[in-house]
């Protein structure tokens, strides 16, 4: 697919002359892209196709190779009972699935929103000149640096109602009247998961935004300073527009990650219905229950949902694909 697409745009209008420079560049581009594409095709393409294929079969993990084609049955199938009522089955008719969709979307929205805002604040702070900046920069990366399985357990421990330090702290500071069983109660489980995810992932955002901030030429600010532009206005008129490309990419990847959230919830609140996301549900069906095909269906639907979201995002956010002059 890639090699066909590689023909330079200009070649259509002039088949006869192709400059050495253009040829060199296109040839280089091809060589630069091929290894990456091969790597991705093997590491992602094949497994992806397998999963999608399984979603149209009755595969079980005990019998992967004897799976038979069932069409869209895993997605939606129906059965007309003798009384005439129609019974819908399949993932799309499963309330658990829609509950998971809702949890996932809710989680992704709030976590990315907070991470973006807090990440921006942290990045702006780190972009300022002050003493001990290096240490602070290392310090804020710590949450991101701790393996998820560990930080999830660590927070599970800290959020425990009896021996958790968060409850202890909350009570001592008078913020909580009684200890809260954060991860156990259906009302607070999502909050707990959000707190941990925001804590863990804000550094990722902050660092990407910081890299964007670093590429803004300083003299622009100097000029604004001389013109007496208020710092708040500077932020909205200069910083935000200039950091936007980096920010958009950071947000895309965060949202994609958030929509696929798995490990944190799997460790922190594995079975709580109020935090069960699509990935957790899919994992359960794929490996814990005997519903491999259903799990594949859920994975494929999750993929579709994310794809639709991404297309919308790119379309509405006007993310620039064709930038650059060459």
């Amino acid at each position, binding site marked *: 697919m890639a090699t066909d697409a590689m023909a330079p745009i200009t070649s259509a209008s002039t088949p006869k002359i192709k400059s050495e420079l253009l040829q060199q560049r296109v040839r280089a581009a091809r060589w630069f892209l091929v290894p990456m594409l091969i790597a991705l095709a093997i590491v992602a393409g094949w497994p992806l196709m397998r999963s999608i294929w399984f979603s149209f079969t009755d595969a*079980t*993990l*005990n*019998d*992967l190779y004897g799976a038979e084609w069932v069409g869209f049955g895993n997605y939606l199938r129906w059965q007309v009972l003798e009384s005439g009522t129609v019974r819908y089955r399949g993932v799309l008719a499963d309330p658990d699935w829609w509950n998971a969709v809702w949890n996932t979307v809710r989680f992704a929205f709030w976590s990315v929103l907070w991470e973006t805002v807090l990440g921006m604040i942290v990045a702006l702070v780190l972009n300022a000149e002050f003493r001990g900046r290096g240490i602070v920069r290392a310090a804020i990366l710590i949450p991101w640096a701790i393996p998820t399985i560990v930080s999830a357990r660590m927070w599970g421990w800290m959020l*425990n*109602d*009896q*021996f958790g330090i968060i409850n202890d702290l909350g009570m001592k500071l008078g913020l909580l009247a009684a*200890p809260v*069983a*954060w*991860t*156990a*109660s*259906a009302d607070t489980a999502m909050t707990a998961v959000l707190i941990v995810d925001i804590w863990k992932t804000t550094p990722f955002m902050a660092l990407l935004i910081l890299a964007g901030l670093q590429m803004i030429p300083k003299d622009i600010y100097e000029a604004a300073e001389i013109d007496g532009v208020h710092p708040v206005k500077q932020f909205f008129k200069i910083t935000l527009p200039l950091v936007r490309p980096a920010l958009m990419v950071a947000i895309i990847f965060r949202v994609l990650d958030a929509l696929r959230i798995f490990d944190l919830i799997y460790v922190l609140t*594995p*079975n*709580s*219905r109020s935090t069960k996301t699509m990935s957790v549900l899919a*994992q*359960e069906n794929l*490996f*814990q*229950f*005997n*519903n491999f095909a259903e799990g594949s269906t859920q994975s494929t639907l999750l993929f579709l949902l994310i794809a639709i979201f991404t297309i919308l995002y790119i379309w509405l956010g006007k993310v620039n694909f064709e930038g650059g002059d060459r």
Partner: protein
Amino acid sequence: MKLKTLLVSMMASVTLVAGAAQAAELSIVSGDTGNGLAFLRSQLDRFEAETGHTVTVVPMPSSTTDQFGQYRLWLAAGNTDIDVYQTDVIWAPQLADQFLDLTEAAADVVDQHFPSIIESQTVDGKLVALPAFTDAPALYYRKDLLEKYGKEVPTTWSELEATAKEIMDAERAAGNSEMWGFVFQGNAYEGLTCDALEWVVSNGGGQIVEPDGTISINNEQAAAAIDRAAGWVGTIAPEGVLGYMEEESRGVWQLGNAVFHRNWPYAYSLGNGDDSAVKGLFDVAPLPMGDGEGARSAATLGGWNVAVSKYSQDPEAAIELAKFLASADVQKERALSQSNLPTIEALYDDADIAAAQPIIPNWKEIFQNAVPRPSAPTKTDYNEVSSLFWSAVHDTLSGNGSAAENLEILEADLQDLKGDAW
């Protein structure tokens, strides 16, 4: 001493004759933990010396969910790198297709084990795993507190409720504000299936799915049992119990903040550790029973087994290893050093064990009340059945609907899952 060496060398030479030509390299995967792994290694060393095979241990995370997912994937892909698997009691029926039938190979030793355990590992007449040790929970109680308030060890749930409430209130009044009456495992996970199965069975409410495959859970006695448990949350048990697994409940217990505690035998030796606040202050008893028809004390059957992969490249040696790990010899060693409960009935009367681990003979009584989870009749669907069950129970405990309502839905869901047959 001399005799033993002689015996070992004789055995070794015998097996050498048979196996010298093909000293196999085996690997066993185990989710066992610290001491358990060390013990396993020591036994494997013995096995290596006796047979000339070499065995590598592949340790796995102690989370049984992680283990199960991995094993399924490996087995599904026909992984030849693992010969022997350590399996939870509930896995055998779900993984039956991928394990070798050990009926013939183990014909000589099967009779030594508790029949109920052998049964739990038999699927469609195929013995898929040999039991290595068993497990059954008990009621931990504070001797000192019961004495202080002149109470007996409760034998029914109602007694437990009353005693717990009374002591808790009194202790709190005395300034011990963190005291609770009863802690158990109320998180939505496999552990809750175990706890709730005990409540239901002890109340004469059946075993969720009966051995013949009938779905029995939607009955009044079962609903009453679960409703009763729901009444504990926030009264004699902390709200947080809804998020507790074994360790959290043990934490509360071991800080001296609970009168009663439901847990597995492992909490016994830890509770008697030097840094424990309840060291020497507690004892164990069979779990209480409910009331009504068929009420009895019930303890969910736990325990671990060894199974041989269908994809093993040296199945004979692998079977040999499995048999070794399930043998009376190893089980005795295990009981002595790990205080794991043997699956061989005779070992409960063993003098050495009684001397070294006095708790084990006690547990025989508890074990006799053991109830298997419905993994055998539900076969490959067990995990989903269990998940549906614990969700229904957890909902009830959290106050989302009454037990009767939730069990009715559960019955319908199970019926869907079952279809024509499990």
